[in-house]
């Protein structure tokens, strides 16, 4: 997920200005179409999912509209599952593209293409039902033992069918409809999971929980996330006077930051920190000068370290011209290396906690 997102973000920038770029980028050409599709479809999906399916989470915003559907959903659910929480009859969900998907009974063999959906499956205790995973799925470690299938623009239908899943969970992409039709003709149900914010993550967890017959576990996971978020939000008491800069790509490869409408931005707001680049949308290439001028109090970098040369923290501390930046002066740099804050998965809560500890915890001043 992370890398797809990476590419998506980059290509969105590229696309906006370079229809003409002939050289070099031929390989990424295909993905440009994806980007457009993603941006378009997610807006639609977001709107639709909130009204039809999401219950508590989005309630604050759209309470009035969804009351009706909410009752419908819960009635249906209580009819089906009974006291145990383990569902055995047919399951119907509306996925995050607004498509209605019905399974005869909860799935026992599932393929998930994105890292975040794999994480959700493990978090709700359905990890043993995962029979295939996308290329970049790497958490938890057990997931690496699951057979790998091509994902993204190279998604290979045959490869997936060979694993005989009942269900395929994937994110939005241009080929979705054709691929979905092909898979569904072969008896594999396709659901789209594509969370754009924390509320969306709850939706995804709930949806997957229902599909796998693990609704109770899903509810627990959501509850635990909410508790953590509520706790740190309450304890942090930040008033937005301190700022944080999220570094997604280091200087060597051109600075990228996470702007508005990213998980990092959402977590920063929760902690009462001001995202330095809240005026930028999504993941974006930004100017080095701007970082110096905006003078963040904290820096969070997600650069990976390969064990050679300076660590990402050291590299930032050593940058020419950055010595006057408050975060550099105070050595207030945090390196998160496991995608805690970049994937729409339960671990967002862990990432938020780590950032909280770093800013307000024992070690922090």
């Amino acid at each position, binding site marked *: 997920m992370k890398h797809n997102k990476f590419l998506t973000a980059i290509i969105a920038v590229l696309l906006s200005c370079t229809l003409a770029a002939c050289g070099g980028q*031929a*390989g990424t050409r295909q993905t440009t179409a994806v980007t457009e599709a993603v941006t378009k479809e997610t807006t639609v999906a977001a709107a639709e999912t909130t009204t039809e399916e999401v219950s508590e989470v989005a309630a604050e915003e759209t309470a009035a509209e969804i009351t009706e559907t909410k009752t419908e959903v819960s009635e249906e659910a209580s009819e089906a599952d009974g006291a145990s929480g383990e569902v055995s009859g047919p399951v119907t969900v509306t996925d995050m593209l607004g498509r209605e998907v019905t399974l005869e009974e909860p799935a026992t063999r599932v393929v998930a293409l994105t890292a975040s959906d794999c994480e959700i499956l493990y978090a709700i205790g359905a990890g043993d039902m995962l029979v295939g995973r996308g290329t970049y799925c790497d958490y938890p470690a057990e997931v690496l033992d699951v057979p790998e299938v091509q994902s993204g623009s190279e998604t290979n239908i045959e490869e997936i069918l060979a694993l005989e899943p009942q269900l395929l969970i994937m994110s939005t992409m241009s080929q979705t409809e054709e691929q979905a039709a092909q898979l569904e003709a072969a008896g594999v149900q396709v659901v789209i999971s594509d969370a754009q914010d924390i509320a969306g993550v709850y939706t995804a967890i709930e949806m997957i929980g229902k599909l796998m017959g693990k609704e109770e576990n899903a509810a627990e996971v959501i509850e635990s996330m909410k508790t953590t978020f509520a706790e740190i939000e309450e304890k942090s008491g930040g008033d937005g006077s301190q700022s944080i800069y999220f570094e997604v790509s280091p200087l060597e490869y051109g600075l990228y930051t996470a702007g508005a409408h990213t998980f990092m931005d959402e977590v920063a707001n929760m902690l009462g920190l001001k995202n330095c680049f809240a005026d930028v949308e999504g993941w974006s290439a*930004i100017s*080095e000068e701007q970082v110096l001028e905006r003078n963040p109090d904290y820096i969070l970098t997600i650069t990976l370290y390969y064990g050679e040369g300076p660590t990402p923290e050291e590299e930032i501390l050593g940058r020419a*011209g950055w010595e006057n930046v408050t975060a550099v002066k105070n050595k207030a740099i945090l390196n998160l290396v496991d995608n805690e804050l970049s994937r729409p998965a339960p671990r967002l809560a862990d990432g938020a906690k780590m950032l909280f500890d770093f800013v307000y915890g024992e070690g922090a001043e």
Partner: protein
Amino acid sequence: MRSRSDRFSFIELLIFAAVAFAVLCLCVCIGSVSISLADTLSVLWDGVKYQAGWTSAAPEGLQASIILSVRLPRVLCVAMTGAALALAGGAMQGLLKNPLADGSTLGVSSGAALGAVIAIALGIRFPGLPFAGTMVMAIVFAFLSLVLILTLAYRLDYSLATNTIILIGVIFSMFVSSLMNIIVTFAADRIQNITFWTMGSLQGASYQNALVLLGVLVIFGGIILRRAQELNAFAVSEDNARHIGVDVRRVKLVILITVSALIGVCVSIGGSIGFVGLVTPHIVRMLVGPNHRRLLPASLFGGAVFLMLADLAARTLLSPIELPIGVVTSLVGAVMFVVIFYRSRRRG
């Protein structure tokens, strides 16, 4: 008697240098963060005083950081990258007698990028010289690609027609991009580095980079400038060059190695920046004519100006967002490419 217009006159040199310098100043003064001209100049002056040892107080503060540590080294690197790429492009266009020949159209930059990606994937590093691994690999691969491309091209069509050049360039770039994908598959843990690297960025360019570029430009640029008359002969025709006594094989080899070194170093510092080497010599040729004694030095300055302006646009147009510099050059370059292609097709 015979006019001496085949030399780059001192006055022309002065004009080109003055324009390049003016653009350099402009690019240092304008940026994503706006700093007044007076402040910029005073910071620069403080920097000069400090470097010259007239004062022991190093310039401090946000503005000093931005101008002296961020903008100036970057603009210097951009200028020299532009100069090197334009010179390499000019030399190739002369050598192959084809106005569409250039590192990016032929796929040499992709080749160099492949070399650098391999260096990143395998973690090739020379102790003490952090950039040397990618740089050496980029140069070696640039040269190998050039040899491969030209061998192929000559086999297909000895006269190196424009169509052949483009065809080979496209095929080779596709070939390289598939090789890159293979490498990315095998080195999935470093994919982030590789992805960003191929995007190319002159952000974070240091004075150290600028020094490397200067050294390369002086040595290899010097070699190319000294071969102006031979390039004239090649630009008339390779057979004619042989007949008037040019050591065709040797000169060709020298130029190809030199061009590879220039492109390799530029790619390893700034990623593959397309079309500078194609567009600049073309525009400059309209100004000073095809004689390489004038064309090459003029391209040197022209390339610097072109890339500095492209970088300025990349830095400031969507501030605080920064565009990849290659996007800007490709935009201008692709349009130019079509114009040149159309013209040469019509004439041919």
